[in-house]
């Protein structure tokens, strides 16, 4: 569907040249929700802008459905862009137009006759849940509603690909979730391929199938979201995963707990996929003569299954403790005994 091969983008600045994207290779499948995560300056914005030709790569090729986006120009590029829509962090709506007129804009560009436009606009307003707001101006809408208009506008010409440029970064957490649900919904209903960039692991966890982690213009890690959550390899990925699985204060709390519970063991259990749904703790308590104390835990849903971590304290005889740890390991649960470091 989308093939990015050896893409490099160099910007000339006053002080020299800056390599924003460095030899990136990616293949994105049809109907997939693909996430690119990275801190600001990692090159993800530049990368996504090369997918619709807003930026031209300095080297390499971008191919979308057989069209070489990186080399077509003029009318061909404009035509191709009608099938590669984009939504933006700051929505980028025309304030001089109503909701309906904003959604109608890409249809005007595509030369759709007026009557058909009207019909399509009404369908789209319904699809994104903005019934009755068609005559409102963007200034009268909330952030979430504005992004819904952005999404409706992006879907107007039946695109094959939807590019999301930090689409939820300007929204509050609750609104973010409702916009993400809408994206998953249209991905399923329309079979639309979605490429999104973000700096929030939460967004990746919630809706993406696969994720690429970018740092310094390079893709440093790539894989299924659940796999990446289970075994993050790079330091930067571990930090992103922690954003979701471990609350800020966890480290300190655990330190404190280890000091508090001098005897027994503090154990961190990592659950991935199906193991997250097994009654591991119940089995543990039933099978072993141990006191089990749950200290802290969090389970997160991803598109491919659940992921979570749980901190427990086990107290009992030494050999019983060892057998319990073996049991946990056998139950396909990640086990990490936490000690004083």
């Amino acid at each position: 569907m989308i093939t990015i091969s050896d893409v490099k983008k160099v910007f000339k600045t006053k002080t020299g040249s800056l390599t924003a994207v460095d030899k990136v290779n990616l293949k994105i499948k049809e109907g997939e929700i693909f996430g690119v995560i990275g801190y600001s300056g990692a090159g993800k914005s530049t990368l996504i802008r090369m997918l619709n030709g807003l930026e031209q790569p300095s080297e390499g090729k971008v191919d979308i459905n057989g069209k070489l986006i990186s080399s077509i120009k003029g009318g061909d590029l404009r035509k191709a862009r009608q099938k590669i829509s984009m939504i933006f962090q700051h929505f980028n709506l025309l304030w001089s137009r109503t909701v309906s007129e904003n959604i109608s804009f890409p249809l005007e560009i595509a030369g759709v006759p007026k009557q058909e436009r009207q019909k399509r606009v009404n369908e789209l307003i319904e699809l994104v849940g903005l019934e009755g707001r068609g005559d409102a101006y963007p200034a009268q809408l909330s952030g979430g509603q504005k992004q819904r208009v952005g999404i409706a506008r992006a879907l107007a010409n039946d695109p094959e690909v939807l590019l999301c440029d930090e689409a939820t970064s300007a929204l509050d957490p609750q609104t973010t979730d409702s916009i993400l649900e809408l994206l998953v919904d249209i991905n399923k209903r329309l079979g639309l391929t979605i490429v999104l960039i973000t700096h929030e692991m939460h967004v990746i966890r919630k809706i993406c199938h696969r994720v690429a982690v970018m740092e310094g213009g390079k893709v440093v890690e790539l894989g299924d979201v659940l796999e990446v959550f289970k075994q993050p390899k790079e330091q930067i990925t571990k930090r992103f995963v922690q954003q979701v699985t471990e609350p800020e204060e966890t480290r300190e709390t655990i330190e404190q707990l280890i000091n508090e519970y001098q005897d027994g063991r503090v154990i961190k259990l990592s659950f991935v996929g199906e193991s997250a749904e097994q009654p591991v703790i119940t089995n543990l308590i039933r099978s072993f003569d141990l006191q089990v104390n749950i200290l802290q835990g969090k389970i997160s849903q991803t598109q491919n299954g659940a992921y979570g971590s749980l901190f427990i304290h086990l107290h009992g005889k030494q050999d019983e403790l060892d057998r319990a740890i073996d049991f946990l390991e056998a139950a396909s649960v990640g086990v990490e005994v936490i000690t004083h470091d």
Partner: protein
Amino acid sequence: MIEQIFPNVEWPVMWEATYETIYMTLISVVITFILGIALGLLLFLTSKGNLWENKIVYAVTTAVVNIFRSIPFIILIVLLIPFTRALLGTIRGADAALPALIIGAAPFYARMVEIALREIDKGVIEAARSMGAKVSTIVFKVLIPESMPALISGITVTAIALVGYTAMAGVIGAGGLGNLAFLDGFQRSRDDVTLAATIIILIIVFIIQFIGDFFTNRLDKR
């Protein structure tokens, strides 16, 4: 009552002059609006980082705009006498004032247009590009509508300046209220004529400001 305050004013002459002032202002405002937007768009589009980025075109346009904006209007009229004569065959009358009025005001307005266009969120232009819009579509459906309130308030300021210019043009024979106030009022020491002409000019300015504000507020949906 009115005869006592304005004993020397010949009203039919005053109305004729008012008509000439309004005529000169109206025609020059309309042409300045179109020409100024065209020039302003050229300045904006060819400036750094924009759709038609072109250093040479931008530098030349900027130079022309700055030169015509810097020449004092009264001198511009004199400089343009040969041009006006070649164009219209005369340098007297309201029509003869139009070239100088337009050439004086359009560059001034073009700068305001450029500033108005720069105020547009770059993201909106990017969004239009991402939808596959042509430059002409971006100009007519994004740039102009999105900056319309600023374009209107800019042309209001320019129109008021033009009323002042018509008075100056009047001094060298273009007719209108400025001409009447100068020849009939000042030179013949009839202060009441000058006063009446001034009051009418003020009323014209107030009306222009009112219309401009009305449309600016009406169009601004932000």
